[in-house]
């Protein structure tokens, strides 16, 4: 990590943490007026996040993928971007910052503890599908994180009749809006993960001559995708709304967590661990 990259990285972390504290202060003390310095901090942090990514890309020469640190930068930026877009369209969703921004700086921290020097992309990563796969995977994940936040907020508010909840919960959007927003985020996240799975299959075909080989990551991403698909069918086909759907969102997210982080902990032998997939590791003993 170069000095300038490190500087912007820490600016990102501190501004995200500061922004979270600001939103928490606003939520706890129910402040609805006054200067929105937490939004300013968040915007600054997002800008610093983008600059850090740009510096890394310029030094590395390739898209930010392949290392936990690079993935952390990208997913943090996408999560904050999703929050900023939602807040612009529906200002009442600001309390969801208390889920999204901590997730963003935790991802940055997780990546930082495993930061490695810039390396050229391994041969298996040099693919036209890599950009599509990585971006849609992380965008989908960001949408699911936000959907989780809205559904948790909905469950918290749903314990009380509409209009009689405690003041802190009253600051959240209405239950109807939280339901709608949560569902829409899951739908967009599902589109993202569909593209992720399809592009991953095409990438695998190019690299290993097989679209689907039931690799643990592949299998669990399909299981997660089906879990989200069941959520969508519960809404569209079974006309379910409310608490059941909210809990289903939480369960589906936990399944997705296994896919994103759990598999690598259980078994290193997956396509996502490209140490296993060096370009020309000899496997056969062929004699002339």
């Amino acid at each position, binding site marked *: 990590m170069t000095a300038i990259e490190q500087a912007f990285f820490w600016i990102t972390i501190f501004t995200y943490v500061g922004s979270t504290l600001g939103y928490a202060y606003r939520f706890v003390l129910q402040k609805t007026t006054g200067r929105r310095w937490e939004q300013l901090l968040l915007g600054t942090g997002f800008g610093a996040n983008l600059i850090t990514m740009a510096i890394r890309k310029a030094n590395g020469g390739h898209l930010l993928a392949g290392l936990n640190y690079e993935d952390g930068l990208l997913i943090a930026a996408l999560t904050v971007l999703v929050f900023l877009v939602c807040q612009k369209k529906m200002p009442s969703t600001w309390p969801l910052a208390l889920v999204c921004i901590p997730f963003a700086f935790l991802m940055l921290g997780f990546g930082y503890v495993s930061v490695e020097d810039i390396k050229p992309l391994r*041969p298996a990563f040099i693919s036209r599908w890599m950009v599509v796969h990585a971006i849609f995977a992380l965008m989908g994940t960001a949408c699911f994180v936000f959907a989780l936040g809205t559904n948790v907020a909905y469950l918290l508010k749903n314990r009380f009749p509409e209009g009689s909840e405690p003041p802190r919960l009253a600051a959240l959007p209405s239950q109807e809006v939280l339901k709608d927003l949560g569902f*829409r985020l899951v739908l967009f996240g599902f589109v993202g993960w569909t593209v992720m799975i399809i592009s991953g299959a095409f990438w695998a075909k190019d690299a290993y001559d097989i679209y689907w080989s039931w690799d643990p990551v592949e*299998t669990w991403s399909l299981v997660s995708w089906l879990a989200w698909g069941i959520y969508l069918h519960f809404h569209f086909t*079974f006309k379910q709304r409310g608490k059941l759907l909210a809990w289903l969102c939480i369960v589906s997210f936990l399944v997705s967590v296994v896919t994103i982080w759990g598999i690598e902990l259980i078994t290193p032998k997956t396509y996502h661990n490209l140490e296993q997939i060096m*370009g*020309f590791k*000899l496997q*056969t003993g062929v004699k002339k």
Partner: protein
Amino acid sequence: MPTKEFMQNKINIIKTKKYTLTLLVVLIILSLSMIYVKLDTRRYYAFLGVNLSLFLLAVSLLTCTLDRLKAFLASAGRNPGPGAGNQDRRELTLSGKDVLDKLANRLARKGFRVAISGHDLTAFKHRSGLLGSVVFHLGLVTVLAGFVVNSLWSFHGFLLIPERVISKVPEDLTIQSQGLLFKSPPSFAVALDKFSFGRQAELQPLSTLYFRDEGREKRQSVSMNYPAKFKGVEFRYKNAGYSLLIKLTTPAGTLVNDYANIATHNGKAWNDTFAISGEQQMTINFYPDFIEKDKNVYASNSRFPDNPVMKITFQEKGRELGSALVAIGQTKNIGPIKVSFQGFRYWQELTVSSDPGGYLIYLGAFMAVAGLAWRAMFILKVFTCRVEENESGESTVLYGTRTTYGQALFIAEIRDIFNGLEEEENDSY
């Protein structure tokens, strides 16, 4: 002969959610059990239970999809009707006709199809959003169809090809698996024109294949993730190594004057053992970029042939007869045997296969993504209202809103429209 009721009953079962969910659960269990027993992927797809489950799933998806398409086409052009939805009322300081006209105008600007009949107004948009679901499911069925085509008509094998040697397809091909209806790969010649490990991008192997078929010639490069394709056959990088040109001579004559493929890499060196004559063997350790780390401890700095040296050891019945380090271009004597290391070339092992169902898989994938995005972006919205004008000239609007999802957001959108009407009326005063 099955009756019409019997067939309709069976179709109804296939359309049920219980049937589809059951199939999905069966597939998940089969997949997890396959991981548990570490079954080879190709044997997994050959397993009858998996193919049957996938086929039945595709039938279910197709039936549900066509059912929805049929319902959609039957109601095409007709007003979707209010249906169950949110009902509300709003008081406006506008005459009834003004309300209807201005509402219609604003809704039309937002893309709604509006119809006014007396005191009633109906508006809807994005009815075609429902088609997105149909296209998505059809896309999944198309992908499954592509897999079926591959399982019946494709083949998978490998080809070992040294540099500057012409190989013939299918004669030199080793086929590992093939579909039930697969006959034979097409005939053509292929040669490895050039190979290198590639110093950029951390050892990305690069090779150029030369294809020839009845006067038609073509050169294509192959690297990881970028296969070559000729006459429907795909060539992918699998493995590569060195072939050393070695000459062994004795007073009695020449023992060996040929290329030896060094195929094994033990993490430290490339090595292989070859039979010479009788019970004599030679073991070759090859160091493309030779360094001596310690006394009698040798290694290679890298895989690139910057300083190629081989260590050759002769054995007979497990007993070492002699060994020597021989650099490229050198000749050394080991006992009665004169060893010359004259040069090297590369060999490459390629995965060879066909993908006749690929077009269907790509088409199905595109349909699935397009249908899903379409469904997500184009939400059916229905707005109906009746305007009642009272004696003072003001109006009461009784309205209903319905949408497939995002009801709260649609209600907010309609309220914004009403607010806009009131602001416009206030501004005109």
